[in-house]
């Protein structure tokens, strides 16, 4: 009898903790939503910041998107190319295992350290200065492991039978990869890209150190311009703003940031489900 009640209690306790975990997510999102929705207005989204705690966040939104754009331009081709090499060409030797090892290493580097590197190397040593280019590249370094991993996984999932069929038709290796393997793998690759986008758009430390103060009221006109971003804007207003205007804008910007992030995540989820269905074939 005692064992049964003990069982029931423990089960209840376990399910409670599970619910706590979900609860937390919803609390955070709900809280930001309730506090931020008041700040959202067409003006907020269309105007530039003005004297620290007034104005809107248009340059911040555009800036974040630009940063993610530069980041992807760097990390996607490089990551995909590395993944193709690792999955299709690499022999089983020391070099290949080191490449994999170092990719994993990169994934483990704390983002602030990448920010520091960006600061020392990109901003100062290369002289690029605090800019869209420096921020985008640093973000690119940060998400590179994820584009490599996701692409490699997607490529490995393509059945070997397709490759053999293509090669037996007299098609060269690269053309086989391009026309058959990548065509089959691209939904998985895109999921990986979206994952990287999600990480990059919310990243603060790296951007803070390499791209700008977050309060810029202008749009970047070239890659060398400093650029605003949503996360840094939130940081600035949250920690240095004390008026209700400042806080409400911080909430508003947080809400926009979460919305962007959720949109990317949901899109990635939908894409992943379609991919799974497609690979199941028409049986």
């Amino acid at each position, binding site marked *: 009898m005692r064992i049964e009640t003990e069982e029931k209690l423990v089960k209840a306790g376990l399910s409670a903790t599970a619910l706590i975990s979900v609860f937390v997510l919803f609390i955070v999102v709900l809280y930001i939503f309730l506090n931020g929705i008041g700040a959202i207005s067409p003006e907020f989204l269309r105007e530039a910041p003005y004297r620290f705690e007034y104005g809107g966040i248009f340059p911040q939104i555009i800036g974040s998107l630009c940063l993610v754009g530069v980041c992807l331009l760097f990390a996607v081709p490089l990551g995909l190319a590395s993944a193709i090499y690792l999955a299709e060409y690499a022999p089983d030797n020391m070099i290949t295992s080191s490449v994999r090892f170092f990719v994993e290493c990169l994934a483990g580097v704390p983002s602030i350290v990448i920010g520091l590197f960006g600061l020392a190397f990109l901003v100062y040593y290369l002289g690029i200065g605090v800019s869209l280019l420096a921020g985008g590249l640093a973000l690119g370094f940060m998400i590179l492991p994820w584009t490599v991993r996701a692409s490699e996984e997607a490529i490995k999932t393509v059945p070997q*039978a397709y490759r053999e069929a293509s090669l*037996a038709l007299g098609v060269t290796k690269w053309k086989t990869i391009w026309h058959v393997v990548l065509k089959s793998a691209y939904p998985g690759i895109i999921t990986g890209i979206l994952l990287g986008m999600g990480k990059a758009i919310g990243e603060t430390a790296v951007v803070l150190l390499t791209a700008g103060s977050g309060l810029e009221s202008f749009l970047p006109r070239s890659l060398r311009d400093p650029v605003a971003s949503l996360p840094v804007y939130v940081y600035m207003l949250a920690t240095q703003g004390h008026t209700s205007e400042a806080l409400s804008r911080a909430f508003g910007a947080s809400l926009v940031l979460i919305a962007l992030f959720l949109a990317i995540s949901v899109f990635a989820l939908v894409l992943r489900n379609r991919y799974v269905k497609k690979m199941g074939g028409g049986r």
Partner: protein
Amino acid sequence: MSKIETIDLNVYYRNGSVHGLKNVQMKIEANMITALIGPSGCGKTTFLRALNRMNELKGAKTTGKVLVDGRNIYDPKEDVIQLRKKVGMVFQQPNPFPMSIYDNIAYGPRIHGQKRNMDSVVEESLKKAALWDEVADRLDENALGFSGGQQQRLCIARALAVNPEIILLDEPCSALDPISTARIEELLQELKQEYTIVIVTHNMQQAARVSDYTAFFYMGELLECGKTSRIFERPDDKRTEDYITGRYG
């Protein structure tokens, strides 16, 4: 001159530790169906794949010569791409690409540069593979939605589309039902008029039914090769006889 001739053909796997094919000397005649039979692991698939250099994909090392129309295909100056256009292959598990039927068949010709007349190429290939009537109005459908037998005939059509002279088939019916198997066997009889066919099979009745010549492989060696009727009625080697009569498989 035989269509295909192998001279001192040896194939080694796993960095030389496995000797998959030992000193195979064999001639394969044009416009005939040659069956390769033997117990599991005897090297018949290795031999087949040596004919279009597909063993290289598994890192195998090949010595000796394989002459196709008198030219050694293993000569470093020979173009593997042209070889594989000339020598097509159909695999044990049907492996159509995850594309439409049309795109599957057009794949080879497109890559090799053909731009016009694609519709007629597709139609001709499907007709030769005895599949046209069944799919003529469904060319845009994804190939993966068709039955195993249809998919295998699609793979045959796909191989035909690049205009080969020789077709290699690796146990093409082992994953199919008896009716589809019969249709493919019928198909092969038609195809041999235009093409040279080499088929690996573990089904001896199939070999006896379908082929003109039969080669018996055993532990990496070619034990016997000759006209199918003779091999099945009066085999020279006792081991061949044992295999044929079902002593081992």
